[in-house]
Structures are given as structure tokens and as C-alpha cells.
């Protein structure tokens, strides 16, 4: 039984106890999003999602309306204010009720949502968004530009909140009539559209529709597909269909019950016992047996996540690039994945996972070679090895297995590893105080743009984490990261990111270990369910066959 809740979270941004990430560096524009703004209509989101997954709850067939679905979910909500939310249970609940102007589709692309598109000025400082007509809040009140202005201004003013800094590039926001909003930016900022798509920038009725903040969030009103008739800060909740939802006929289900089930065995038993129709967080070790169950569909969704081994460059042995390279050479990521993921994960090559645009599969990496590892170590100041410690988050089998494999892999180099395991909150507090030699964690993206991962993990000066607490400081890389942030031409950005990935692979501040997927299981009668690479799912397209 996994008691550590961290295994249950999808992403660090949304993790218990952890949060935030380099959202100041959030995402560049996708190639699909030209200056006229955005990809296809939202109704296609489910279909596009199925193309990116291995198996899954296909949306084939004619959707049927009605019915109730129970989701046994591993995260629980604590409160529903987008401006103050960061843990997974909150975010993955409030996003059913509140919606932003753009969203990330299951295929990982920015998709027009409450906005039907935008136009940007040639200098990329003025962005004008057209609002979708006919959108109403769940109480029947029409969505107006004033609601957008108020909501985003509220989030921007919440600078001490989890994502308040996100809107730093917005200099001014104003309504242009009832159906358009104009943003003026302080600088050309390529990640702007991705910033806007984040749940924290979801649209609420201006001034809470005349209610107090507390009253409003006890009975929240949004434009999303679902209503929450009552909210008592309990772990379980029942969402009802929003009769005023702007996508005609959706959501297909009448209601949606989301139960908090933190124990993975209990989740699986609820699914196989027919008590729940969707579960998240399926352990890789259970995938094969569940796939053998004819009443269950297991789906692996690509994630914006790379598991990494972080080396503390504040220590002399890890400031030595040859030591870092030796360690990278010594770890056989294919064997590591084979031994731990039961065929679900892929061995990592570059820091940026392939699910992200600009991940470069041609990056020259330090592929496993014990000969090369020994040669690198011989060139270092520690040719005879050294003793070191490896810190991991406890209670998660995967990290424990990774640690043991890495411990064994470094033994031939005479690098003797002692494994230390702490509960997750203590683990984070420890490495964030640099009280570690090496630790295993994951690099993640929360939006559709690789810039978040690039800046948070590689921009020592402004990324916010001193290169994910590794203290890796390469001015050339930092400069390239900044160049990409203001580069709007997609091929040019691709070239910049390819250069970054190549340098990082050579410098080896981290060892990229694997790319794990999100693993969900559903009953076979569940159709249209899809998860985006950030781990979000809206469920308006789900129906029961």
C-alpha cells in the first residue's frame, strides 16, 4: 500500500506539498497557433486525444446522453479558488467548473475555448481576444468581457499566490465592448498564450456575481460543463450537468461522482468490482493484469514529464563535469526502464520529453557505456571514485527501485552510494536547502510549451530554482533560454532548443532517466475519456455506451 501521496499526484505544479514551477517562463506559442489564434474547435478535443495514446477509451460510436459515472480518484480537493489553487485535487476539480480562454487539448495543443481566436500586433505587444458568443455561466448570466478583465486582473493582483507571477508580462487589460478583450504586454512574450490557458486564469463572474468570495466558492458558478451544487470541503463530490453549457448537448453525462480513493489497490478493486468506472494512477505493475481483464481498458497517456537524477554542483565532485558525465554513461536507462516500468515508460534521451514540442530526438546523448564512464572518471579529479548519498522520496516503490539500480550502476566506478529515503515533504525541504549529494525527482511541464521546463531547470539566475536545485549555471544555456522566450518563429525556436538540449546533454547536470506516462483505467463502456499531457481531463466528452 502506497501511503505516500506524492505517488498520486500528476505533476509537481499540482503535487501535494510541492507546487509551482517556472511559470514565469511559460510556454511559447505552438506552431499550430498562428497570429489568428489557435487550433481547431473544442469539440474535436476528444478525438485528437485518442491519436496520442496507446489504447484507451475510444470515442467511436454515437455518443449517448445520460447516466452517472463514478471516478475513483487518488487526489482530493481542499478548496476551489483558481487564484489560490496548486494541489492536484483542487486543480482537477475546479477545472470542471471554471474555464480559461484557451485550453490544452489531449493532443497537447492550445485550443480555442472561451475565446474564438486572437490577433496580435506585429511587435507582439498587443493581443486582442474575441470571446465566444453564446457562452453563459451556469446561473444563466452571459459571459462578458468585463468578467474576463476582472478574473485575470484578480489573478494578476494575487502576486503572492501560487501562480500570481504568471501574468507578469501583462501591462494592461481592458474590455473592448462586451465581446473582446485587449491585453497590452510589457515585452514580447512568446509563452503568453500558454499563460492564458492555465487554470489560474480561468474566468469567473466579475465580483463573484455579487456574492462574497466565501459564499461564491461554496456554490461556485462557472462556464464549465459541470455544476457543484454544494461544497463542504469533503473529499467526495458529485458534479451535475451544467444545463447552460455552451457546447450544445454536452456534457453527455447527467452527473459525475468523484470519490477520493487514495489506496491503489482499492482503486483497482473498485474498478474491477464495478463500483467505479474510471481510476487514475494505475501502478505499472498492475497494467498487464488489468489489460487481461476484458471489462477494463488501460490507457497510457503521454506526459510532460522526465524523471531525472539531479547532481549537486555545490559539491566539488559534482562540479567536475567528468564526474557528471561518468555517471550519465554508467546508467543504463533501457535496463532501468525494463526493470521498473513493466513496459509502460520509455528510456529518456534528452531532458525534454517527446510529448513536448521542440524535444529533439537527434540530441547527442551520453548513451550507456561502462568503458566510456570509466574513461570519463579517469579524466576527473576523482579517478578512484568517492562515497556519496542519494536522496529519494520515500514510500514510492519506483524511486526506491531507481535508487538501487543507480547504486549498483555506479559501483563499477567505485562511486559508493548510500540511499536515504525521506517522506515527500521532508524530501523536498531537504533538497531545496541543498542538503543533498544526488536526488531523484522529475522535471515537468504544466503547459503546452517547453519553455517552462527549460527555464525552471536550466536558468540558474531567473528560473526560480537555481536549475532545479542542481546549481548548474551555464551562461550560454541561460542566454539561449531567454532568446527562445522572445522568439516567435517556430523553426528558429526549434533550432535554439536543439542547441540547448545538446549542451545540456554534454554538461550532464542531470541524468535523464525515463519518460513515464499517465496510466488510467476505465470500464469498457466508458467512451470519450482523454487526458492531456499535463494530466488534466474535463470529461464533457465522456459518455457511457
Amino acid at each position, binding site marked *: 500500500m502506497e501511503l505516500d501521496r506524492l505517488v498520486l499526484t500528476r505533476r509537481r505544479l499540482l503535487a*501535494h506539498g510541492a507546487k509551482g514551477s517556472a511559470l514565469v517562463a511559460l510556454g511559447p506559442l505552438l506552431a499550430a497557433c498562428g497570429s489568428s489564434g489557435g487550433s481547431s474547435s473544442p469539440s474535436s478535443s476528444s478525438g485528437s486525444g485518442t491519436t496520442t495514446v496507446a489504447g484507451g477509451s475510444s470515442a467511436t460510436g454515437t455518443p449517448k446522453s445520460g447516466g452517472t459515472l463514478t471516478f475513483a480518484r487518488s487526489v*482530493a480537493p481542499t478548496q476551489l479558488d483558481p487564484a489560490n489553487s496548486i494541489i492536484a485535487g483542487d486543480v482537477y476539480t475546479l477545472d470542471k467548473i471554471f474555464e480559461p480562454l484557451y485550453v490544452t487539448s489531449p493532443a497537447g495543443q492550445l485550443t480555442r475555448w472561451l475565446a474564438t481566436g486572437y490577433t496580435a500586433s506585429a511587435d507582439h505587444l498587443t493581443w486582442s481576444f474575441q470571446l465566444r458568443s453564446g457562452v453563459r455561466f451556469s446561473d444563466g448570466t452571459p459571459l462578458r468581457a468585463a468578467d474576463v478583465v476582472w478574473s485575470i486582473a484578480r489573478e494578476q493582483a494575487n502576486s503572492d499566490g501560487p501562480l500570481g507571477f504568471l501574468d507578469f508580462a501583462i501591462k494592461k487589460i481592458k474590455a473592448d465592448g462586451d465581446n473582446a478583450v485587449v491585453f497590452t504586454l510589457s515585452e514580447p512574450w512568446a509563452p503568453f498564450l500558454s499563460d492564458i490557458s492555465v487554470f489560474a486564469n480561468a474566468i469567473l463572474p466579475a465580483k463573484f456575481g455579487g456574492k462574497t468570495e466565501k459564499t461564491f466558492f461554496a456554490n461556485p458558478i462557472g462556464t464549465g460543463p459541470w455544476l457543484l451544487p454544494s461544497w463542504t470541503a469533503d473529499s467526495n463530490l458529485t458534479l451535475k450537468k451544467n444545463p447552460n453549457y455552451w457546447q450544445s448537448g454536452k456534457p453527455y453525462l447527467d452527473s459525475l461522482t468523484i470519490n477520493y480513493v487514495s489506496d491503489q489497490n482499492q482503486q483497482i*478493486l473498485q474498478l*474491477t468490482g464495478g463500483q467505479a468506472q474510471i481510476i487514475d494512477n494505475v501502478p505499472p505493475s498492475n497494467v498487464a493484469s488489468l489489460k487481461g481483464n476484458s471489462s477494463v481498458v488501460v490507457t497510457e497517456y503521454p506526459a510532460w514529464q522526465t524523471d531525472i537524477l539531479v547532481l549537486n554542483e555545490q559539491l566539488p565532485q559534482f562540479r567536475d563535469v567528468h564526474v557528471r558525465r561518468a555517471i550519465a554513461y554508467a546508467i543504463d536507462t533501457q535496463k532501468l526502464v525494463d526493470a521498473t516500468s513493466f513496459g509502460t515508460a520509455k528510456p529518456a534521451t534528452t531532458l525534454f520529453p517527446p510529448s513536448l514540442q521542440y524535444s529533439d530526438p537527434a540530441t547527442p546523448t551520453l548513451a550507456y557505456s561502462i568503458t566510456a564512464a570509466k574513461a570519463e572518471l579517469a579524466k576527473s579529479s576523482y579517478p578512484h571514485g568517492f562515497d556519496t548519498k542519494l536522496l529519494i522520496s520515500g514510500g514510492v516503490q519506483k524511486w526506491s527501485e531507481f535508487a538501487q539500480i543507480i547504486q549498483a550502476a555506479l559501483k563499477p566506478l567505485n562511486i559508493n552510494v548510500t540511499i536515504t529515503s525521506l517522506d515527500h515533504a521532508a524530501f523536498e525541504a531537504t533538497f531545496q536547502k541543498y542538503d543533498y549529494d544526488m536526488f531523484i525527482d522529475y522535471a515537468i511541464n504544466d503547459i503546452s510549451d517547453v519553455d517552462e521546463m527549460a527555464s525552471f531547470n536550466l536558468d540558474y539566475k531567473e528560473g526560480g530554482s537555481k536549475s532545479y536545485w542542481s546549481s548548474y549555471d551555464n551562461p550560454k544555456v541561460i542566454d539561449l533560454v531567454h532568446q527562445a522566450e522572445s522568439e516567435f518563429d517556430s523553426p528558429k525556436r526549434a533550432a535554439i532548443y536543439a542547441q540547448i538540449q545538446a549542451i545540456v546533454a554534454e554538461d550532464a547536470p542531470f541524468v535523464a532517466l525515463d519518460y513515464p506516462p499517465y496510466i488510467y483505467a476505465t470500464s469498457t463502456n466508458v467512451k470519450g475519456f482523454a487526458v492531456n499531457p499535463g494530466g488534466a481531463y474535463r470529461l464533457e466528452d465522456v459518455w457511457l455506451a
Partner: protein
Amino acid sequence: MIGATAVAIYRSYTGRRLAAAVLVIIGVALAAFVLLHVVPGDPARAVLGEHAPESAVLALRRQWGLGNSMPAQFGHFVADLVRGRLGSSYFYHEPVVRLIGQRVGQTAWLVLVASVFAVAIAVPLAAIAASRQDRFADHAVRAVGVVGLGMPAFWIGIVLIEIFAVHLKLLPVGGWGTSLWGHVKALVLPGLTAAFAIVPILVRSLRVGMLEVLESDFIAAARAKGLTETRVLLVHVTRNAIIPTLTLLGLNIAFLVGSTVVVEQVFALNGLGSLLLDSITNRDYPVVQGITVVLASAVVLINLGTDLLSARLDPRIRLQ
């Protein structure tokens, strides 16, 4: 005169036990407070996220009183406790008392149902073992008890779910249900699982008690009157053994309450145990401290009630 003396002794005993109970609760509160605050982990950073400026994190810590010294924080906590206040959750933004009120029902029902199951299972097993002392049935009951003590609650729970929920589909896999009947059905398997945690202890103690009763003169008299062995066991032995069983159950209530934390996890019950585990993970100090104090108080009060009842029934106890 003798009656007045006995009342005085009983009152003195009650006073001593009450004072001890208060001290135990304060001790538990102090232990929970210290343990929680000395382990690494920052709830303010957790709430605000990795990118919140340090100034915002410090401001939030100050708002929560976490910038004060540990003794000052503990003093504040105890002062609030005396006034019946447990503070507000850092994550839920709700008073801890209200959160506990929302969750305590499932835990209380679980403990109650588990207690009933424990007695209902332990008494017949002990009777079988005692009536067949040193024979196969006795050895079997004792052996099963020893094995049962070694089996973790979560494993027993999973086995019960597999049999009764997944295969036989008689009971729900987990959760609390949505109706009264749903709640009743939802409590059967977790109640049994929690009961199994203390049944072996009860059986062993009860068996010994029953053997003593079986050797009593009044049992010999009952047998001499021609009563059947079953009637002797059910009417005379069990009735005399049930009071020490309840006393024993009261003394083991702490173990039962502790086991509900795991049982709630296994059966997806969102009671105090589930809230406690989540709050520890999140370092939601007020909630952890509040639940700890409430659970400790419940255990202490039940033990106190058991002690006082025992002293009432057996004068030798209060004179010790």
C-alpha cells in the same frame, strides 16, 4: 460510615484518574506538536508553491504564527485548546473543529461496528476454546489467533474485499455509500477488518477468564443440577465473562482507533484517519494537532470510563 469512606475513596480515585487523563492529553498534544514541527517540511511553501517569493512565504508563516518560537507556538496552541479552539486548516481554510465534525462520523461508526464485531467473534471463539481446553479446537483457536495477530489489517481487508465484494458482490468494495442501507453495507467489511486486529487479544484473555469461571463452584453446582454443557457455557460462563471482555475492549480501544487509520485507507473511508494522513503529508499542522488531540481524548476518555466502571464493580481496584 463504611459507605461514606467508600465514596470518598472512589472520589479520590476518580480525581486521580481524571488528573492523569488531562496530563496524558497534554503530553500527547506536546508530542504531536514537537514531532510535527521538528521534521522538515514547510506548509507555507506548500500552499504558495515553489515559485512564490520568499517574502510571501515568510509573511504567510508569520500570519500562521510559525515565525514565533516553538514554546510560544505551543503555548498559543494550548491556550486555544483550553478555549475549545483548534485553529484553521492551512489548506481547507476551514476551522479544524468543522473539518473534524465532517469526518468524525465515519470513524466513530467504524470503531463502534468494529467493537461489536470484535465481541461477537471473540466470545464464541473463547467459549469454544475454553470448553475444549487443550483439545484440537482449543489449539486451533489459539493458533488462528496468533496467526491473526501477525496479519496486517490492510491484507485482511483486501482478502475480504476480493471474496465478498469482487467475487460474491454481496458488499461494496469501499466507500461510505449514499443511503442508510449503503452506509450499513459499507461498514461491514471495514468493521470486520478492524475487529480482526483485536479479536486475538480478546480471545486469549477471555479464554483465560472463562477457564477460571469454568472452575468455579457455581459452575460445578450448575452442572450438578443437570444443566447441559451448552447452557452452562452460554448462560453462566459467558455472562460472567462478558464484563471483563468489555473492560478489555475498552483498554484496547487505542489499538482499535489506531488501526482505523489504515482500515480507512484500505476501504476508502474519508474519516479522521484519512484526513490525518493527508494532513501529515501536507504538513497541515492545525489539522494534525487537532485530530491527534481528539483521538487521544477519545482513547483517554474511553479508558477512563472503563477504569471507573471497573473500580465501581470491583472495589479492590480503587484501593490499589
